[in-house]
């Protein structure tokens, strides 16, 4: 029997949702300050309007839904899934006001793409965009990559017992430190430290490569935020190709890989446990999948004769493979080149890499290499079970910060999420084919959206059908939250309509 949610349930959800919206409104002050500094008059007004609307909405929710109760697991999941929708709608306001997006739907598409760290973009005339608007595009990637909830947990929720339940809803089941608020603050510490180092490195390279210092710093900060949070936005329409720099590409590869590593592993390395890099199941699986998919891509490119020089094969083939595998979506080629020059085999290699994704508890999307590693380990275990005598007791372990015995519950959970992702990839591909796009193109773009990558073969464009835009938005949202929070929201809505009092 399904029970209809009580009024108190709505109040808890509304109260915490309000807090998260207030957090989002506070973040909008950063581009506002930049707009004032650069004397960008109309963009500054865009942010004043957006801040006023966002803060008003957030405060109204905290007033109307004020409660002292802590959220339970169900509340946590619903708060997270709704907060991402609210962030998309409110984060799109300054974008829409800038007139760089043709419609509010397009602005919402880019807003969801930013928060979900995807990187697919419908922005127009990007080369003439204001600094403040451009910063906002990259900042939402940073906020989304860290987790919108992390913002609220770090600064707005004072040691709430239910904080962990909200944290888990954002597809981060692992606590790094015993206290979830400390965990959130550690994630910020890591990110801010890398932000300073990464921005400095990218700005230095950009300056070295001929950019003026002011622009080098701005581009460095934007590219870092989008690379470390495996997002894929860039300040210029050519993406990373704008810089024409091998060194810049190398630095972004390092940042993308850092972004694809589990924050727990970052903590282990920061604590001096460097051996963890070579032992961790995620790192081992990531290395194997990168190598395997690169062989496919390299073989595919070799067959088509697209890049005959080794350096070109590295700068194009390997770069896009890392960009796809880490879920970043940075590009140094034009979208149409994927279809016209790369050939189906190389495209399939990139699609596989995108589908696999990076580490859990990182900023990447996709199935995640931990699950891939567990499934392969379970397969190997089953094969051994067949070969060995029936009486043999087989116990397998995997190393993820500590040695863990491989149990059926681990494999079941990994298989369920993997299956959900495969269905999501397929769903988007079918919708794409429904609109007449070829199978491989549709699968590539769908996987890119659902795994929060952002590489495009040209389907994502202003003139694509509105339903396809909404499909990709749904995929980005569901893929980023890893389904559980989304399923809980759907269940909650069903209970609210059909449940018994």
């Amino acid at each position, binding site marked *: 029997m399904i029970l209809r949610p009580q009024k108190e349930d709505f109040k808890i959800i509304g109260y915490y949702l309000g807090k998260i919206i207030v957090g989002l409104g506070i973040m909008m002050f950063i581009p506002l300050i930049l707009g004032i500094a650069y004397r960008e008059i109309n963009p500054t007004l865009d942010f004043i309007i957006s801040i006023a609307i966002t803060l008003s909405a957030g405060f109204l929710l905290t007033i109307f839904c004020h409660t002292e109760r802590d959220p339970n697991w169900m509340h946590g999941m619903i708060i997270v899934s709704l907060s991402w929708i609210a962030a998309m709608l409110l984060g799109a306001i300054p974008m829409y006001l800038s007139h760089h997006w043709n419609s509010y739907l397009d602005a919402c598409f880019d807003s969801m793409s930013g928060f979900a760290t995807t990187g697919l973009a419908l922005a127009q005339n990007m080369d003439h965009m204001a600094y403040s608007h451009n910063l906002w595009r990259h900042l939402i990637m940073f906020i989304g990559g860290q987790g919108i909830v992390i913002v609220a947990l770090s600064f707005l929720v004072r040691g709430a017992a239910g904080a962990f339940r909200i944290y888990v809803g954002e597809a981060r089941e692992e606590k790094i430190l015993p206290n979830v608020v400390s965990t959130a603050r550690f994630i910020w510490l890591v990110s801010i430290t890398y932000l300073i180092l990464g921005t400095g490195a990218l700005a230095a390279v950009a300056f070295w490569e001929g950019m003026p210092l002011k622009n080098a710093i701005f581009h460095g900060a934007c590219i870092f935020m989008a690379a470390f949070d495996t997002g894929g936005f860039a300040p210029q329409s050519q993406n990373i190709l704008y810089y*024409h720099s091998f060194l810049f590409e190398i630095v972004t590869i390092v940042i993308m890989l850092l972004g694809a590593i589990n924050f727990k592993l970052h903590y282990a390395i920061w604590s001096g446990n460097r051996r963890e890099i070579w032992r961790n199941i995620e790192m081992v699986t990531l290395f194997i999948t990168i190598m395997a998919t690169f062989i496919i891509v390299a073989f595919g490119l070799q067959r088509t004769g697209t890049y*005959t020089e080794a350096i*070109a094969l590295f700068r194009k083939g390997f770069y896009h493979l890392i960009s796809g595998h880490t879920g970043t979506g940075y590009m140094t080629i034009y979208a149409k080149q994927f279809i*016209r020059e790369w050939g189906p085999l190389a495209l399939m290699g990139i699609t596989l890499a995108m589908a696999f994704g990076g580490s859990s508890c990182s900023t990447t999307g996709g199935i995640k290499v931990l699950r891939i590693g567990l499934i392969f380990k379970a397969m190997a275990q089953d094969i051994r079970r067949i070969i060995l005598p029936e009486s043999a007791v087989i116990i397998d372990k995997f190393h993820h910060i500590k040695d863990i015995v491989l149990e059926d519950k681990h494999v079941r959970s990994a298989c369920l999420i993997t299956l959900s992702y495969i269905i999501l990839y397929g769903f988007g591909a079918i919708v794409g084919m429904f609109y007449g796009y070829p199978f491989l193109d549709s699968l590539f773009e769908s996987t890119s959206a659902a795994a929060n990558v952002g590489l495009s073969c040209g389907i994502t464009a202003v003139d694509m059908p509105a339903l396809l835009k909404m499909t990709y938005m749904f995929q980005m949202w569901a893929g980023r939250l890893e389904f559980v929070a989304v399923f809980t929201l759907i269940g909650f809505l069903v209970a609210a309509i059909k449940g018994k009092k």
Partner: protein
Amino acid sequence: MNATYCHCEELSLPVIARAQNARSNLRDCFGLCPRNDRIRCICVLAMTAFWAVIMISTTASAQPISSTDLINNAKEYNGKTVTYEGEAIGDIMVRGAHAWINVNDEVNAIGIWVPADLTKEILHRGAYGEKGDWIEISGVFHRSCVEHGGDLDIHAVSIIKLKDGYSTAKPMSVTKVRYAVISGLILVLVLLWKVYRRRLANIPQ
């Protein structure tokens, strides 16, 4: 045989100017008199066609080619001299004796590798509040440039400024000011209400 001569002339007409010059030069070299010798005429025609093929294979067109055309047909244009025009956007990144500029034809931007001294005329570059100079570039198009790690680019030989850039800074939008004031007032009211409710909650019953 007059007719034959005319026929030869007609066939050679579509060939570009340089090829025509080449043909007449050839005619002079061979000392041909096309009136009486059909074989010689065919020979000239064949030589003309050969030159035309050579010229067409290295020079794509004197007309500007769009970025979409270049990207979609990169293999066909690869290694050919092309003319491309668009707005110079972003920064000029000087690398030794050369520089990178990015030129946007309002659909895509393409990287142009250019001798640094040719960039001196580019005074406006497209950015927020600034429309960049509209320039025409002639140069060799590369689908996958060997010198630049496989980038799709154009190595410019010449740059001509067609239109000067200008400021596109817009005055303050009155509508936006109105919305900002209204939404700001709503926020102030909400905050006052929040403070009032908090004080109300703190008053002992």
